[in-house]
């Protein structure tokens, strides 16, 4: 494994950049992607996850085009009054900012991981996990409000097209599940960094932090699309 890592791009005589590099990387009888295998596999998993979320968003687009009943206005459905006038989408805006903040702390955690700064890496990863848990908590609040107060069900709602509920619960539910899984994943990796597992077993290589970071940023990325297409459109 270490041998493979050492004969990376830098040592390869035919290493080229640009299109010639693509051809070289893919055609030679050698490792195609000069990254740790876990990172390559995480990218391929994220690619497959991209298609899953795309299927959900495309099916949402399809039912929204086909319905002859007006679509409920998300700006009003997700409005929340904090003492006075209802503010449109305010909870969703806060959730978006929480998730972006968590993405920022994760990016810093990855950076400190490369600097072998164990303490800062662990603290930033725990901060990321806490922000992720906050996001899921707010989503639980949003679901409760929608189900109990507004009477939204997967098969219908009082505001308009019946497909609104099924699309909403499917898309945000699947995303929330990804966030929840990510929180657990981050805590596991943070524990392993903190207890010195990677120092003992991987020769102090914290690449697992970066791989967890890829997953976490992807969860943020998916939210960018959900925010645009479901809440703003």
């Amino acid at each position, binding site marked *: 494994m270490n041998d493979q*890592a*050492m004969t*990376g*791009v*830098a*040592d390869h005589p035919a290493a080229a*950049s*640009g*299109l010639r*590099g*693509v051809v070289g*990387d*893919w055609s030679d009888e050698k490792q*195609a*992607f000069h*990254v740790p295998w876990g990172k*390559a596999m995480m990218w*391929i998993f994220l*690619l497959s996850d*991209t*298609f899953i979320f*795309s299927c959900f968003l*495309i099916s949402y*687009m*399809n*039912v*929204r*085009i*086909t319905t*002859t009943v007006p679509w409920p206005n998300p*700006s009003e459905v997700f409005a929340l009054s904090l003492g006075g006038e209802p503010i*449109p*989408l305010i909870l969703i*805006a806060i959730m*978006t*900012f929480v998730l*972006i903040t968590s*993405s*920022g702390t*994760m*990016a*810093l955690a990855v*950076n400190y991981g*490369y*600097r*072998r700064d164990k303490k800062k890496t662990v603290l930033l990863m725990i901060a990321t996990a806490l922000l992720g848990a906050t996001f899921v908590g707010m989503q639980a609040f949003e679901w409760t409000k929608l189900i109990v107060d507004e009477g939204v069900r997967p098969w219908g709602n009082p505001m308009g097209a019946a497909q609104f509920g099924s699309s909403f619960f499917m898309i945000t539910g699947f995303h929330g599940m990804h966030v929840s899984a990510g929180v657990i994943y981050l805590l596991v990796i943070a524990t392993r960094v903190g207890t010195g597992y990677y120092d003992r077993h991987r020769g*102090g290589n914290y690449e697992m932090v*970066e791989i967890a*970071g890829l997953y976490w*940023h*992807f969860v*943020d*990325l998916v939210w*960018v*699309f959900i*925010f*645009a297409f479901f*809440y*703003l*459109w």
Partner: protein
Amino acid sequence: MTDHAQTATATATPAKGAEGHQQHPLGIYIVVWILLFVLSGFSYAVDYFHLEGNLRWGLILLFMFLKAGLIVAIFMHMAWERLALIYAILVPPLSLLVFISLMAIEGDYTFLTRLVMFGPAAEIEAPPH
């Protein structure tokens, strides 16, 4: 960018020389972080100020793609990967454009069919049998 690359090489840990390109100064992450906040604020403003029509859809898509690009390129380090990996990950999703087009056309057809079958016109032109 060259400036940044030089700093990265200078501060790279000797133990991982081959992956030294992954070591970036913190500054770029902070800048991207702030940009993401600002762009999200803009997206929210589109809804808050009730922009309508093509302006609304255009701005929503613009801010969305800018945010997605920043996350993938900087936070997910795609900007520093070799082209072989970039193409392997970013080219396949382009096929989604075909899928989106197909479903949009299909959706329009279903919508028109529903208007004919269930709309007000359906009762006037009821089938003879």
